[in-house]
């Protein structure tokens, strides 16, 4: 027999109790891991490392209001600006309304330069880009989206519009691969398809995406653009891409505070449950602990064994909870990744897993230490009297 075997067998003393506490730990760790990962995913929307030098220019009244595409001329004239791209959310679906994904009408001439990291421009050939530019009814799609729908270059994708009354038939001219899966769940087509199909959109756009040379120029540029268009028929609201994305996240309310609140509640609940269980389990073994000590086990060694039991118990629950969360994350990615692109990045990161494990181990140590310490400090003779 080895120490680990002794600890393991002690854990299985009351199988039902062990099963129930492990079950509650599995659910708790699963909940915390999924919630924290959701928070990480939402954070990543606003902390895209590629968005540091991009601005979104939209109508001051809201994203449903349009801006004249002629504003592009002024934007391009600013010395800080590298490229400007008109972008309009199209909101179409493919075959089935449930088969929804992000799709945009965008300025084909500047889209690659503006979002060069997302498109993995360095890996695209000039011929591929030219092929897309050449075909006015062409489109580009991310690899994840193409794989999901079984698309390949040359396939025709009929989109059914939900916002605009057109159903464009688009030919895939380029499939790009990005460093983030969420950036691949998207389709872009030529802006003129929207302008020609929807007369009221002629010369209008939902937003301009502006790429600047240097991020430090952004505050000055924001101020200048909004001042220039102030008091016009189409006043602008210019903000960083991160701020723009954050506005979407904020639509969900203060989700960060809600998630953190739930996490704290779950951790406290499991701490109380585990402490109660471990306390009961240790108290029931008062005589056994006294016998161990009579046989020569020092108080610190018995304490270590009891702590190891607590840690093993929560470690087991945490590991199973994380496995369950990993499985759930895969489900979330495939079920929601296409609907809400940022969910394509949903994963239980190693940082989240470590956080959950560390938290679980802390719960194990905290919940076990006090009853274990008290039990090992109890006089042996007193412990022996509790026999029978």
């Amino acid at each position, binding site marked *: 027999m080895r120490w680990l075997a002794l600890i393991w067998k002690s854990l299985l003393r009351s199988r039902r109790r062990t099963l129930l506490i492990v079950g509650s730990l599995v659910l708790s760790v699963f909940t915390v891991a999924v919630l924290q990962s959701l928070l990480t995913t939402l954070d990543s929307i606003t902390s895209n490392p590629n968005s540091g030098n991009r601005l979104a220019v939209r109508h001051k009244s809201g994203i449903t209001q349009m801006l004249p595409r002629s504003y592009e001329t002024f934007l391009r004239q600013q010395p800080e600006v590298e490229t400007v791209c008109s972008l309009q959310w199209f909101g179409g679906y493919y075959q089935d309304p449930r088969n929804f994904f992000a799709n945009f009408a965008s300025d084909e001439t500047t889209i690659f330069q503006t979002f060069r990291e997302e498109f993995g421009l360095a890996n695209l050939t000039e011929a591929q880009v030219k092929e897309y530019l050449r075909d006015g009814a062409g489109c580009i799609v991310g690899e994840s989206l193409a794989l999901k729908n079984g698309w390949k270059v040359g396939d025709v994708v009929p989109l059914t519009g939900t916002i605009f009354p057109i159903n464009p038939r688009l030919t895939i001219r380029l499939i790009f691969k990005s460093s983030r899966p969420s950036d691949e769940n998207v389709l872009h087509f030529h802006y003129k398809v929207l302008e020609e199909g929807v007369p009221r959109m002629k010369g209008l756009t939902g937003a301009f995406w502006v790429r600047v040379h240097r991020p430090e120029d952004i505050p000055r540029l924001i101020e200048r653009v909004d001042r220039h268009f102030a008091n016009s028929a189409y006043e602008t609201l210019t903000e960083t891409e991160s701020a723009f994305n954050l506005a979407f996240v904020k639509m969900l309310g203060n989700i960060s505070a809600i998630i953190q609140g739930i996490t704290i509640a779950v951790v406290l609940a499991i701490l109380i449950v585990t402490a109660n269980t471990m306390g009961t389990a240790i108290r029931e073994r008062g005589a056994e602990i006294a016998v161990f000590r009579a046989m*020569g*086990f020092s108080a610190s060694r018995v304490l270590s064994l009891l702590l190891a039991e607590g840690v093993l118990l929560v470690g087991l629950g945490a590991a199973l909870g994380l496995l369950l969360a990993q499985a759930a994350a895969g489900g979330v990615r495939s079920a929601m990744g296409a609907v809400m692109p940022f969910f394509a990045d949903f994963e239980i990161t190693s940082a989240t897993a470590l956080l959950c494990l560390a938290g679980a181990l802390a719960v194990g140590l905290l919940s076990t230490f006090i009853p274990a310490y008290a039990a090992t400090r109890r006089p*042996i003779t007193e412990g022996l009297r509790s026999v029978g």
Partner: protein
Amino acid sequence: MNANRFDLGGGEPIITLRGIAKSYWREALEIPVLQGIDLEIPIGSYVALMGPSGSGKTTLLNLVAGIDRPTGGTLEVCGHELNDLDDDELAAWRNAHVGFIFQNYNLVPVLTAFENVELPLLLTSLGRRARRERVAEALALVNLTDKQWNYPRQLSGGQEQRVAIARAIVTDPDILVADEPTGALDAKNAEEVLGLMGRLNADMGKTIVMVTHDPKAAHHARHQIHLEKGVLDRAVEVNR
């Protein structure tokens, strides 16, 4: 000779108690349990501590076994002055020198007979193979080799107590302390356990100190020491 000092047949003492006193406190009230105990128990003795409830016999046994500390006097067992040892040293000393036999056996229910016997050896420097050999020897000695993989719940009371005896002797201690070892057994099993303890004393030279209420059990010892209200009352050599 001191009134409380008894001759248990001479020989080199393995247990020496001088002026031992033990009191418990209930708030401000001191409750003396043992007073002025002087006693020498020679190596290889088989002593039964007897007396009415509250006479202090279990307290005396606990002091000798190093699981309790006196409030007065000195206590030398197996060449060690126990008062000088800190708690960890005392634990190591117990592992090396004392084997315990309890009334209720106190086996660990989730461990097999073999694993129960192996427990005290986990604290030694013995390797796995050496431990297995020692456990096998101890179980053979108590005639339970065929039950080694049984759990306590699969053993009779007598078998459980024999496993407990195997656990007590597996480290080859100098002293065996037994607190009412037959208290939970029927007559037949009690006789078997007492016979086994007698052989451990006679054949292996183990010094045994046993607390018992049972005159039949005490008759297996070579000396009976009677306590009365915390003092040694008389010592009787058992004639067989």
